[in-house]
């Protein structure tokens, strides 16, 4: 089981990110709060456009205009990232908080050798070590993710998708950060390669004891990979609990339907879709954004936004079905 230490590495409180378009603000992330503990693998799952990737980028303060972090607090071991000065932020990035980007295909500089791109982070954060030492470190990192030495002198286009993804993993752990964010790690990979990449990541993470945030849309992958899981819907967190609880006793109707909609290879059962359409974040429905599609919705759901509340130990849900039970 996951969280060994009760000490959070990262606390996110009330994070709000909007994209300001000519047609009005797109409310990509609305009052998102969660913690990530030391050594833990934390999943952030949801369907396209639910705000999970925006959340990841906001943690790194990499939201570009017209997007803007409106309010919130992102504390990495106590330091609020959102109020850091640019220089402090720059030194903290990657040393404490690194990223395995979405679409590793385009995340490596096409005109730099793999070696140079990994060296860059070491040189910029720790100063230039001797060439031999540098080469040794790069080699060690690649070795850790199961890549042969000759990859160092290659260019990104010479590598397959799975290899590029592993280069990104090697780069992310180069400075032994406290937290690594993996954004849609394997969305373009074949299923076998996907498994290999994920195994590599888990192995490295366990070895280094880094905390890990895994952003994704695939419930199957999340089940394989994470200790604890937050389900996002329309820019808000619907439910947070440890993975086994989420899969065995989901509370939020959306979580339940989402799990049910994943086809299984273990038993044949009628397919279940979630009726209706995902909401637009430009103009989300009032109240709980899920209420138009929710089989259990009642009047209150259409008026009042449910707050994320702890309904059982370490199990938080944002649903009026359960907020009533408490109050």
């Amino acid at each position, binding site marked *: 089981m996951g969280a060994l230490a009760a000490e959070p590495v990262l606390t996110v409180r009330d994070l709000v990110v909007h994209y300001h*378009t*000519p*047609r009005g603000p*797109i409310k990509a992330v609305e009052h998102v709060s969660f913690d990530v503990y030391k050594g833990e693998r934390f999943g952030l799952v949801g369907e396209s456009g639910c705000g999970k990737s925006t959340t990841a980028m906001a943690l790194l303060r990499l939201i570009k205009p*017209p997007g803007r972090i409106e309010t919130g607090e992102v504390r990495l071991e106590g330091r609020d990232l959102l109020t850091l000065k640019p220089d402090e932020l720059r030194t903290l990035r990657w040393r404490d908080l690194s990223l395995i980007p979405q679409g590793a295909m385009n995340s490596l500089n096409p005109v730099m050798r793999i070696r140079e791109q990994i060296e860059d982070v070491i040189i910029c954060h720790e100063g230039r070590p001797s060439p031999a030492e540098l080469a040794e470190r790069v080699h060690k990192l690649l070795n850790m993710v199961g890549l042969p030495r000759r990859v160092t002198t290659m260019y990104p286009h010479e590598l397959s998708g799975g290899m590029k993804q592993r280069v990104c993993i090697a780069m992310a752990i180069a400075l032994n950060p406290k937290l690594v964010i993996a954004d849609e790690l394997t969305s373009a990979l074949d299923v076998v390669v996907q498994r290999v990449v994920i195994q590599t990541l888990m192995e490295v993470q366990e070895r280094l004891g880094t905390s890990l945030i895994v952003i994704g849309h695939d419930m199957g992958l999340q089940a394989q990979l994470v200790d604890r899981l937050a389900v996002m819907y329309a820019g808000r967190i619907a439910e947070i609990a440890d993975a086994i609880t989420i899969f065995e006793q989901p509370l939020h109707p959306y979580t339940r339907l989402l799990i049910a909609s994943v086809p299984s290879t273990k038993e044949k059962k009628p397919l279940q879709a979630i009726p209706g359409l995902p909401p637009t974040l*430009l103009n989300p429905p009032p109240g709980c954004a899920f209420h138009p599609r929710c089989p259990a919705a009642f009047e209150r759901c259409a008026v009042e936004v449910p707050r994320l509340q702890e309904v059982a130990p370490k199990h938080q849900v944002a649903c009026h079905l359960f907020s009533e039970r408490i109050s």
Partner: protein
Amino acid sequence: MITHNKKLLIGLSILLLMVIVSIIGVLLTPPELRRTGSFLPRLPPGEEGGLLGTDALGRSVAIQIVEAILKSLLVGLIAAALGTFLGALIGFSAGYFGKLIDAVLRVFIDVFLAVPSLLFLILIASLMRGVALPAVALIIGAFAWASPARQVRGQVLSLKERAFVQLSRLSGMSGLEIIFRELMPNMFQWLGANFVNAFIAAILAEAGLSLLGLGPQNDITLGMMIYWALGYGAILQNLWWWWMAPVFALIALFLSLYLIHLGLDEVMNPRLVVRA
């Protein structure tokens, strides 16, 4: 859409203003005033010289310039229309039919792209002494197809691979029907932008030829105005109004066309538009 883009709006306004003023100017000019010696020569702008002064041959610069603007635009229009049409035809054939036709046409496109067309123009124009304005326009147009052809070819190649073309085949559409009903509508606005490009290039080519002495000898275009002015030593004689009028008219013309070009680019390029 058009009115939302500042560049497009400003560009179109300048161009329209120039065209309207020129048309009114030409319509208001009595024919006898166009002749050489209608005015005293070398008068600076002012009361006697009229709005823009007179040249060394006793013609009004203002009367010449309105006519020259229209003639230059006319050359550009004919040449750009011809060039874009030929280019679209060649590019479309290359892209749509592919295989051998494409291979052959591609060589021609590449060759004519590589060689500055001004050279061929010089060659032809210098053999046909004293070409008339429509001839200049046609010659320019005949050598202005390579760039639109390459772009149309690329566009067709990428459109052809789009799934909606496959779907049309499944829906029982024939090749020609796919060209006209599925591909063409997507090319129109895009050809429009290309036309503006060719327009700019054609006016530029005409002015260049004129300055080399190969312009339409019996017509007055902006390029020919500068040619005559330089030939009569307008700079050395300090007849600045004579050569500056066409120079600034050209600058204004090019600027407006570039703005239109850039504006169209922005309007059509979805990457520049914020996605919602």
